[in-house]
């Protein structure tokens, strides 16, 4: 253990002052996120079959399946459903991405999700393709 003295930090202080500051000037400069960063959820409307697994597994209740039309298989007519994403409740855990066997879902590296209008975070991309 080294000897007690006052002002032990001085040397390191001047060293730090000579170095570049580590502050990220965020709104003016970009933040680089990692490759695996789990950000905003994105859906590929073409790949999505509307199976509804994501709705079941989502822990935050982001996904609701809404009926978009009818399709007949043989004699029966069944309702076709597609997911709507309320991204403002999304916790970016990635469970839906993991369980989507069609690879329709992905987490992008976008993280700026602050909006004035909550409605603008409702993603209805998957609906449009069917209509």
């Amino acid at each position, binding site marked *: 253990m080294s000897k007690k003295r006052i002002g032990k930090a001085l040397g390191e202080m001047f060293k730090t002052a000579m170095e570049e500051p580590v502050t990220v000037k965020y709104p003016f400069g970009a933040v680089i996120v990692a490759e695996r960063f789990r950000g905003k959820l994105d859906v590929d409307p073409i790949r999505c079959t509307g199976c509804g697994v994501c709705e079941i597994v989502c*822990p935050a209740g982001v996904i609701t399946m809404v009926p978009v039309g009818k399709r007949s298989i043989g004699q029966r007519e069944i309702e076709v459903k597609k997911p709507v994403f309320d991204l403002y409740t999304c916790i970016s*855990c990635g*469970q839906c991405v993991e369980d989507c066997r069609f690879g329709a879902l992905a987490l992008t590296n976008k993280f700026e999700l602050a909006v004035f209008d909550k409605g603008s975070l409702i993603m209805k991309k998957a609906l449009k393709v069917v209509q």
Partner: protein
Amino acid sequence: MSEEEKERREVGAGLMEYSPENLVPFGPVHPSLKEPEYFKLILEGEKIVEVHPRIGYVHRGIERAAQDRTWVKNIYLFERICGICSFAHSLAYTEGTESLTEFQIPVRAKYLRVLIAELERIHSHLLWLGLVGYWTGFDTLFMWIWKDREHVLDLLEAITGNRVHKSFSTLGGVRKDLTPALVSKLEEETKFITERVKYYETLVHSEETLVSRTRGVGRLTKEIAERLCPVGPLLRCSGIDRDVRKEDPYAAYEFIQPEVKTSNAGDIESLLSIRLAEVTDSCRMISEALDRLPEGPVRVPFPRIIPRGDAFFHVEAPRGELFYFIRSNGTPKPERVKIRTPTLANLLTAAEMLKGRPLADVPVVLTGIDPCFGCMDRVTVIDVDKSKKWSVSGEELRVYGIEYYRRGAGKR
């Protein structure tokens, strides 16, 4: 009347004598507390006579919420109990749940769990060390340590995808694997952290103003520790050699043994050196884990329904022993999950350590236990008539409620 009850009454009687002028509120909103919690400090001048914690400000009903969610969804729920030790929570929950089944978790996944747990320990300890600087008015130390802690957080983001809520451990293994680039980055950063910690170790033991605030402050003796049962670094600083990683190894801790460092001083300075030594040790364990990392899958398919049974599981979170009790009734949802976080075990010890100290020591000692009130807050009952206060479990509350209505007190 038992001895304990007598003592409690005496304390209660003593309380009445203090005028409100002697009472200084510490919290629920206070610059040195990260989370809301209220401490009634009764002072005589600068000296503290009594400390009465009042918990329950951030009770979020997570244990109840867990009963309505499936086993997988609960991973993400329990992770959100605490931001700093989020992985310890998900680790305890997943390992506890896995122990109810007969599935074998791949060894590589176990190693990766250790890796992330140790990275989390580093970042949690560094956070606390920085805050010690902040509490003692040494803002420079605070800024430096948090600057270095950022490296660990970036590493966690690169490996797991998020800085705070890692969502890494899942039922049946882990969700992501390491790449060669990440391995080299890990090696580089652990070297960097070891280097920096070495500097901080000399700094905190030699900068006189800092030493004068930490040495001999909040002395915790072995007797008090045995009586009040603190956990984690706080227990180890009183000279009791206990670490869940060593005594009841989980994940891959049987292959990668930690070095448990204890100290007999029991003050904040020894807490500092214990936590710094643990950071160095974690760096060593990470490089050891990287060296021995076996090949293979990181995840096995896991059923959605867990067989009936009870599981007790405890892990060594950065703050101490984290305890989980999980009961399954063979459905897709757990019947009951009970969590005991380290802060709850440590809080009364901190209150005890404060007695007789000047007010200036409150932030250092109280937060020296590295409290996480958000994790801790469960149900608190305040009975005004008897001026007693205790935490109750859900079951006790249910019984209490039934009795309350049976007595007819609920009828208005």
